[in-house]
């Protein structure tokens, strides 16, 4: 028995060591995403966009030579302590450039590993300013939290005409807390009244919090939390018969939130990176890809609704290809040098890098979940 066990372990080791064996005509792009853990669903959708893009354009031409592009995915398990080894794995497998991660804290946790190895990273949807701050090798193609928090406050005040907003975020989650913080800053300027509360991880009963919101007289609930909590908040607000508007962050742009909205008829808005119908060609292709691949469809949550993070993942892949072309080589150092000047017109709009390596973006979208049609309706908002 013991010998058998040892044998199995030994075989596993050999297999693991035999794994990285790529030919010379391949350029590796690392995908640093959570496939399991709290952020697993979002990470998967983001990865899908990249995989679709890779299927669409599996080669890149550098200096007249055509290389195959290989995506290598490392699961960071949404966990900071696993981020280091996941990042190292990508470096070890020879990634020329890395895309990711969904979730800012793992991005920050992995940043130093990439930095030490000199591998450039393009953050796809990690919105925390700290991701790129002080990390010269970290770029990003999405807007950042200060902007997003401000949009939400302005939206609540100007568009929804609210005077009291109840804010609810997860305790110990820096994404939630950061957004709440920026929201509060803008809300104070605008003269919005804000009540902010935190719920501990693993909470499923939000009725007490919603009662607090009701007692506060909130007209809008801003809940920058992850999808499962978002679903619960929407459903419980509905079952309590609350007459409020619920607004969520970019993470909420997902069919899973839409399902809850359709089931309850609540009035829900969220920010997003991508307006529906912005790139019809992409949408058509991506839907066909999803419906043609059972695993991909399952990873997307079982239907072919397009999540903004997938579009962002798709664009990130092409930005990476542009960078490789501009660098004229697969060498990470050369790509890092070329990256700041890369521009790309993607499905989510024009992408260019400005200060700190953050994308220069002038617009963000706010989407409304239409409970009757089950579709998102986008509104354009000025980031000014």
């Amino acid at each position, binding site marked *: 028995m013991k010998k058998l066990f040892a044998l199995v372990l030994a075989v596993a080791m050999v297999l693991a060591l035999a794994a990285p064996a790529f030919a010379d005509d391949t350029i590796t792009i690392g995908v640093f995403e959570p496939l399991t853990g709290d952020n*697993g669903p979002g990470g*998967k959708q983001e990865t899908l966009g990249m995989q679709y893009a890779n299927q669409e354009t599996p080669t890149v031409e550098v200096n007249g030579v055509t290389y195959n592009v290989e995506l290598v995915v490392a699961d960071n398990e949404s966990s900071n302590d696993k981020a280091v080894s996941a990042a190292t794995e990508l470096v070890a497998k020879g990634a020329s450039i890395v895309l990711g991660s969904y979730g800012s804290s793992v991005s920050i946790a992995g940043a130093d590993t990439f930095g030490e190895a000199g591998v450039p990273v393009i953050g796809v949807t990690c919105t925390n300013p700290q991701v790129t701050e002080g990390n010269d090798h970290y770029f990003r193609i999405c807007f950042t939290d200060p902007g997003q928090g401000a949009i939400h406050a302005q939206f609540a005040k100007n568009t929804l005409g609210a005077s009291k907003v109840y804010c609810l975020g997860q*305790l110990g989650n820096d994404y939630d807390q950061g957004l709440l913080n920026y929201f509060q800053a803008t809300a104070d300027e605008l003269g919005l009244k804000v009540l902010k509360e935190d719920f501990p991880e693993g*909470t*499923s009963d939000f*009725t*007490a919090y919603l009662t607090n919101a*009701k007692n506060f007289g909130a007209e809008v609930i801003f809940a920058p939390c992850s999808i499962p909590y978002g679903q619960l908040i929407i459903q419980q607000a509905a*079952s309590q*018969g609350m007459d409020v508007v619920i607004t969520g962050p970019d993470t909420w742009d997902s069919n899973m939130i839409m399902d809850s909205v359709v089931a309850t008829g609540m009035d829900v808005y969220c920010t997003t990176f991508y307006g529906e119908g912005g790139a019809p060609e992409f949408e058509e292709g991506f839907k066909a890809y999803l419906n043609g691949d059972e695993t991909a469809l399952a990873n997307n949550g079982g239907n072919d609704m397009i999540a903004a993070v997938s579009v962002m993942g798709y664009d990130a892949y092409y930005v990476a290809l542009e960078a490789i072309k501009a660098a004229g080589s697969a060498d990470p150092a050369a790509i890092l040098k070329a990256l700041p000047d890369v521009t790309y017109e993607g499905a989510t709009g024009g992408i260019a890098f400005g200060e700190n390596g953050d994308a220069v973006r002038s617009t963000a979208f706010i989407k409304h979940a239409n409970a009757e049609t089950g579709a998102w309706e986008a509104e354009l908002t000025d980031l000014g």
Partner: protein
Amino acid sequence: MSAFFQANLPYLLSGISVGGQYALIAIGYTMVYGILRLINFAHGDVFMVAGLVMVYASASMPMYLSIPLVIVVTVVLGFAIERVAYKPLRSAPRMSVMISAIGVSYLLQNCALYFTGGLPQMYPAIPWLSNSVNIGPATTKIVTLVTPVLVLALVVILELFIQKTKIGMAMRAVSRDFETSQLMGIKINSVISMTFVIGCFLAAVGSLLYFTNYPSVIPTSGAMPGLKAFVAAVFGGIGSIPGAVIGAFIIGICENIIKGLGSNWTVFSDAFTFVLLIIILLVKPTGIFGEKATDKV
């Protein structure tokens, strides 16, 4: 007064409802502990699996079939866990069995992760239970009102079962003295299996109520309710069924009152549960209804 009532009734209601759900899980913990002296860490995950089975079952069959199916599958799962993971360790030190329980919990969570891909699964709406209802100033789902009633009914039935039936008597004997009961010809294994079957049946019922209220199932859905229910069981005096139920209601209500206290306190709603537990343990080391354990010298 009426304003106070109006403002606070929802907290109380949700406290009672949450307490009822904890109670159904806590009974499973307390019964297993009473007989095996084992903290069955996997119990919360069995509860989560029951939720997932319902999600998958209801997708392909009508409600009147899927509900019994969920209960049967959960009971079989509990039975299987006991046979595979705990029975072989019957004579092993207590810590080994507990670690086996942690291992099972880990396995169930990871399997759920593998099959669902970590995506939250929408729990189906069970007709009638999911409807909203008005009680004075508060609006809530019918399930909130059904839960405490159902819990009390189940506890009464369970107590009758334990007090009056032969197998109930055997359970009491085993929990009092494991070795002697074995010598007296009680079939220990069937008594233990029975305990797991009852515990898992209640967990399945609990999952129906719980997920109707909070209709999103993720692989870690069972962890927090499981932990809270366990705390409730310890609080009430582990091994005592009424103790577990009362402990669960106290914890459910306190937790919701804390959440209503103001924004600086919501942070500690979970921590408070543990503070309460530690205080109780210090004042009465075996919980409210626990029997004092004497170490024979």
